[in-house]
């Protein structure tokens, strides 16, 4: 069985981006996921975000673990390298890759099982290192690929397809990330492309670990009555905050009544404008954000949107003090001290 290549008929009408590419140029192979799977909608949002951001496809590096969600890296930006690694260990691959070549644009796609069960330790430590990557958790509350067991993000009382109730408290990646000092934390919903795309664009620009927890219903195993990760439940309990992303050098046109809007400037000069956020909601105040989320949670509301951002946080390379140029680009001459140096330094071993 070889992979199914999508027919690439280019409609002359298709809009093109600054690189002269159409959105079709950012697609990948045909998805093999179930019809209606939330993950496919996220794939579509990624394609749109990368296209609109005019990123050269081959400058992107796609990383994932194992799971239905992790498969999706094959379904977007076919002209970029992808690494479908092992279950739960993608964060370490990403960390090493980024250490070697800091200039690539990294996007990691994972699932709630991949990131919150087997991969929890690596996720936490990648956040701690503030590795420069856009990290997506396609969160459906179950292990889809292994047929629907509860994952660590399943809410108490949520029912499985067989009718069992989950009794264990969930691990919420958002509050976890905030507690661990993450510098970019968002939650979204696969069904809300309008909200998701700008978050992804901002995430690509963020210099550091950008965590986006995306509720992404599993139609095969967790989209039924009584599940708290179903389309229906999420739509009903979703409290969306909206943010617009204005890339660097694009003038800010949209404007709202003062107080209603709050703008945050990213390290590269692009701006994130928050609207439809509660009065004096401050996306740069970690504690305030945490408090707000917990309060909403108590009324079992699911707040989505770009929730917290700290554009000034030091990423891994800043902490390591590595050269600006990717280590992979350094000429051997800059790396090997040569025979003379070897002669000299051996004095200490005499």
């Amino acid at each position: 069985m070889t992979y199914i290549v999508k027919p690439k008929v280019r409609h002359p009408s298709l809009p093109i981006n600054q690189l002269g590419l159409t959105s079709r140029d950012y697609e990948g192979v045909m998805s093999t996921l179930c019809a209606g799977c939330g993950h496919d909608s996220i794939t579509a949002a990624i394609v749109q975000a990368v296209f609109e951001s005019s990123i050269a496809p081959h400058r992107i590096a796609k990383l994932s673990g194992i799971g239905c969600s992790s498969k999706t890296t094959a379904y977007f930006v076919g002209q970029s390298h992808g690494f479908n690694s092992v279950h739960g260990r993608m964060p370490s691959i990403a960390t090493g890759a980024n250490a070697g070549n800091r200039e690539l644009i990294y996007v990691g796609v994972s699932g709630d099982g991949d990131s919150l069960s087997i991969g929890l330790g690596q996720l936490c430590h990648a956040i701690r290192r503030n590795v420069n990557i856009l990290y997506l958790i396609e969160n459906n509350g179950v292990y889809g690929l292994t047929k629907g067991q509860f994952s660590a993000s399943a809410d108490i009382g949520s029912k499985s397809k067989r009718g069992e109730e989950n009794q264990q408290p969930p691990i919420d990646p958002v509050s976890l990330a905030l507690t661990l000092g993450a510098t970019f934390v968002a939650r979204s919903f696969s069904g809300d492309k309008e909200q998701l795309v700008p978050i992804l664009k901002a995430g690509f620009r963020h210099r550091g670990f950008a965590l986006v927890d995306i509720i992404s219903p599993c139609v095969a195993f967790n989209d039924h009555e009584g599940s708290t990760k179903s389309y229906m439940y999420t739509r009903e309990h979703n409290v969306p905050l909206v943010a617009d992303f204005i890339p660097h050098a694009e003038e800010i046109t949209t404007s709202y009544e003062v107080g209603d809007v709050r703008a945050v400037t990213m390290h590269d000069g692009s701006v994130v404008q928050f609207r439809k956020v509660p009065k004096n909601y401050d996306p740069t105040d970690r504690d305030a954000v945490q408090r707000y989320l917990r309060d909403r949670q108590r009324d079992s509301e699911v707040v989505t949107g770009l929730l917290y951002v700290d554009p000034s946080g030091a990423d891994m390379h800043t902490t390591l003090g590595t050269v600006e140029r990717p280590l992979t680009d350094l000429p051997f001459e800059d790396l090997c001290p040569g025979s003379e140096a070897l002669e000299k330094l051996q004095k200490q071993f005499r």
Partner: protein
Amino acid sequence: MTSVVRALRTSGQPEPRTRINDFAFKIASVNGTGSSSANDLIKKAIFRMGIPVSGKNLFPSNIQGLPTWYEIRVNRDGHTARTPDFDLLVAMNPATYARDLAEVRPGGWLLHDSTWPLPRKLVRDDVKVLGVPLAALCNEKFGGSRERILMKNIAYTGALAAFLDMDMSIIEQLLGESYSKKKTLLDSNFLAVKLGYDYAREHYECPLPIRLERMDATADSILIDGNTAGALGCIYAGATVAAWYPITPSTSMIDAFQAFARKLRRDPETGKARVAILQAEDELSAVGMVLGANWVGARAFTSTSGPGISLMSEFIGLAYYAEIPAVIFDIQRTGPSTGMPTRTQQGDLLLCAYASHGDTKHLLLFPADPGECFDLAVRAFDLAERFQTPVFVLSDLDIGMNDWVVPRLKWDDSYRPDRGKVLNADDLGRIERFFRYVDTDGDGVTARTLPGIHPKGAFFTRGSGHNEFGAYTEDAKEYAEVMLRLSRKALTAAQALPRPEIRKTPGANVGIVSVGGCHRAVLEAMEKLAERGIPTDYMRVRAFPFVPEVRAFLESYDRIFVVEQNRDAQLASLLALETGFARARLGHVGTFGGMPLSARDVVESIMKALEWRAVSETSANGGPHVPADDAVGTDE
């Protein structure tokens, strides 16, 4: 113990009155009391006198307060493997008096702190006592309990200098180098040395019959440990990413790499680092980082020990199947499980050869000393990139953490990294379409591309079933095609690996095979065996998988002994599996109790085996249960 063994044990008794540059002594102390700097001083002084020397540090898995030993062997013929026969013992630790005394050979000497009366435990009528009131001498001259403890150790150095006729000018010189910036420390240290030195000369006839004499055998050598040399190799190979998790005995390799990088890997303008050293949260993460870095084209490595390899197993299988280069140093320690973290062993051979589930086979390199750690580190990166697969450098605690005399390290400035089949932007521009796993020239190695270079280079790296085009597959034929190519690749790789070292002796019909750190003990044992009328041929394997000449060697002798430091004859196992040679015909000789191998271990076991003529039969069913094993295992 058989007659032969007893014969051996006492052979050469009574001792010749004087033995110049050919003896061994052991210092017993408490860890955390700074004895190590004293021991280094002694070892280095002897080295500077131009005499072959080695030091074995037997330290506990503990930070402070437990017994620790340091063994120094001096041998003009360059035999610097461990020896279990000690002429002199420095007893600085009351907790171990009894067992320490027992290790002195009949007619040997015991040096103790005579500030207090000689304890019963230190009395043996065939051992001469050398009492030096170290504490008293130091308490008189130094204040502060910590300083007094430290100086006591420096003081025995002085006493030894007198007893063994060390060159005081060299000791002075060495102290000067270590404390160049700390005048007061220099003075107090030298004073302490003098205290011991003078007292010894005033109260005893110095030097003893076992003594040192300047010679010129180390001029072109250095005294270095394998972890330092290996780290230096990584610097020279152009490694830019190191990911690790602390674990004895591998930690000092990363420490050394970090230290070298600080000096040799700074951008002259910005002072920024031309290297990324990542302390991971565990070994799974460490090796994951190494794979990620290699995937983008950086030369990356990790250094760990047994437990780390076990944890890395899943990722190692991914690297094998997805064909990602990786260099992994395994500084072996005594297993299984946590085992004895500060003792040596060669217990990970089998694990590393076939690590991970499914059909896998990995490339292994076996350095025999710190010098080879340097060379093979560089070689490892070339092999990993050329064959796009994990390469293990199997060192051990003895090689990695003890100082060995080796020839000065050499570097050929014409060296350029072998990146293997990596397509650059031009290559990709030229071709129609790139397929990751198509074997164009039949050597089993296919071209790879690096991320970010060219749109056409894009491919999908996966540990799941894939065909030669890199596409996902569940098709038996497509899957098998790739798996069979990987076997082909291993055959190609074997040809590119370091060849075995083979030494022939006229008339030998006994063959000895060994690996890594056993080398020096075996060479010494071969001389001893020859003296006893048993000429032997020798093959030291330097890499896995093996080339056909390895099998050829095995086939040319009536009796083959495989010398290695583990219980289950792991090298013999690899030989049996990869050459097809009968495991039953490979005699197992070795120790596995954590002590570096000695020539005596080898000679005794082989003599015994040749006596009993039973090795092959026994080892046949019992697997590892060659009597030799037991004997040696429990001799230690």
